[in-house]
């Protein structure tokens, strides 16, 4: 039964209007702000000063490199660990205590806000945190200074670990459902034809769940690129991750910094989108 176009339009119109106004409108206003157009006060002195200011920020390149490193490392580690965990979990009977506990924790973890993960990471990993205290108790270190700098560090290890802690369950849950929809049959067939367990996974199962995993990685990458609270709580004083840098500039008492802050956010978003698209076409291209 064909549905009239008008009724479909009525169904999508509210979403299109709200996202168009809030998201599209916000994006457009952001762009206008960065090129010196301020419709409220009727100012139209178009210039690229904001982008020049961003380009001249001290330590900008270090921030860019670190941000890309954090997003990439978080994505790769989350995918690697999450997929392995899902495969292991599927092999294990799911009604064992361990299987059920893992599943529950996966789902429970999805509900934990990122800010809690960041706070937990600091209290666990800092040089006087719980792990350092355990190491001291075991006689492995003689004081906080001997414990490796895992948070507030220049390589942002703490930030990455906080993201990975949050995203592994996400990847795990997604992979489980992808595996369930593929079923065990194709893998078993490959095994019966003499493939090793790894070969069966690599050449039979993985290609089938790959699009889902790419989507999953895309979400993690974009999220790690744009989130403020995790690096703000776990990051070093320098270099700062781009969202932290942008937020600090946006709320500084110099209003002149504001367009530059928006420009920084937009550039990050655009660069991120570019990387995501390149990455996706690379991955889907490789499949062929």
């Amino acid at each position, binding site marked *: 039964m064909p549905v009239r176009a008008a009724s479909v339009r009525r169904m999508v119109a509210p979403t299109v209007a709200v996202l168009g106004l809030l998201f599209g409108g916000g994006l*457009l206003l952001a762009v206008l702000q960065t090129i010196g157009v301020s419709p409220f006060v009727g100012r139209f002195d178009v210039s690229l000063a904001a982008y020049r200011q961003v380009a001249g920020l*001290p330590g900008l390149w270090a921030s860019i490199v670190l941000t890309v490193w954090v997003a990439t490392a978080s994505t790769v580690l989350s995918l690697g660990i999450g997929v392995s965990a899902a495969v292991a979990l599927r092999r294990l009977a799911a009604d064992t205590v361990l299987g059920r506990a893992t599943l529950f924790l996966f789902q429970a973890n999805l509900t934990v806000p990122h800010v809690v993960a960041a706070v937990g990471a600091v209290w666990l990993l800092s040089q006087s945190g719980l792990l350092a205290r355990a190491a001291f108790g075991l006689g492995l270190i003689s004081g906080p200074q001997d414990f490796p700098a895992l948070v507030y560090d220049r390589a942002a290890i703490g930030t990455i670990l906080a993201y990975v802690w949050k995203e592994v369950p996400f990847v795990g849950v997604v992979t489980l459902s992808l595996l369930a929809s593929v079923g065990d049959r194709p893998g078993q067939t490959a095994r019966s034809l003499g493939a090793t367990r790894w070969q069966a996974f690599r050449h039979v199962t993985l290609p089938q769940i790959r699009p889902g995993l790419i989507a999953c990685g895309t979400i993690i990458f974009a999220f790690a690129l744009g989130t403020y609270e995790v690096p703000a709580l776990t990051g070093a004083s320098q270099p700062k991750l781009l969202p932290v840098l942008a937020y600090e500039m946006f709320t500084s008492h110099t209003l002149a910094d504001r367009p530059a802050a928006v420009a920084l956010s937009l550039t990050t978003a655009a660069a991120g989108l570019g990387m995501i698209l390149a990455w996706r076409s690379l991955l889907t291209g490789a499949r062929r």
Partner: protein
Amino acid sequence: MMALRPVLAAVALTAIGLLASTPGHAAEPKPFAQIEAEARGGSVNFFLWGGDERINAFISGPVAEALERDHGITVNRVGVADTAEVVNQVLSETEAGVTDAGSVDLVWINGENFRTLKVGGLVLCGYARGLPNAGLVDWEDPSISTDFGTPVDDCEVPWSRANFAFGTDSARVATPPKTMGALIDWIRANPGRFAYPAPPDFNGSAFIRQLFIHAAGGPDAVAGPFDQGRFDAIAEKAFGLLEALEPSLWRGGETYPTSIAQLNQLFANGEVDFTFNYEPTVFGANVENGTFPPTTRSFTLDDGTLANTSYIAIPANARNRSAAMVLANALLSVDLQYEKARPDVWGMATVLDLDRLTPADADRFRAIPRHPAVVAPEQLADVAMPEPSAAWVTAIEARWKETIGR
């Protein structure tokens, strides 16, 4: 192409209500009784730094209760992470054309933030000295009449005095250094045991100024208006010193704590041996709430520790001006100044001139007890060193970011 339509709608939306009018920023003189009558039954949004539980409790408790009881005014405390955000809010509201319905009615402020508002014509002037309780303040005292070098000019109401002080654990450091030079020697002799938070953290910035003034040879060298030549000469010395100090700092100066809270945690866990604060009563409060070890003690330096006065100001675009004035007057009252000075409430020193109070009231202030972790007020007053002007402060922070913090 469907996605384009909402975008066009957004453009139409932005076109609504252009044109911001210039803000008028002098309060029209009115008898205070009339202001009180106008304010009755209203509310006031009081924006202030929210990073201290004691402050929050003081405002939401005694202050809010007094205003509700005496004037029927509801006080909405709005805690912010950094006062710069409030200035930013006033600026952006004004930019957006909100000139008499702004959300900020009263703000706790001083230094660069005040200067930004004043230079931008965004602060209400001409009412402060007319408040009934203003007579209790010595407005001619230079530490009151200028705020980090910016003339107050009846544009803000003094509220509290603050003194910079260092803290250490007496169980770890029995005899703390007595001068800035001695502290620097101590840092060199004990590598990895000292840290300071990176600006824009307020206390970290203050420490850098403390060291800058030391390098300059004293507060007189940075007194008066900003001078690029003088600044460059001192900066070379000061930042050379800071750079040379880096290898002796926590983590070899590779990174710095990002907030005073982070430095306090390092201190509490014995990762470093010193912390500092522009509010010495923090040391007492943090011992009491278990954040610091009980053997924590604070101290001053003989060659001077920074001091400043902080104020409350009404933005020019405030919606509830009258209620804000009533609140400002109440905050200057003997009762609320005394409450604020009590260490079990907040412990922030009064701006009132004790000679202008009744002897009984003055004695109340003199009898205020002191936590053993907190350095004595007389000692703080003895070594108090004025802040350089706001332009110096900005330049010092900016140079730190260019040289050390990258």
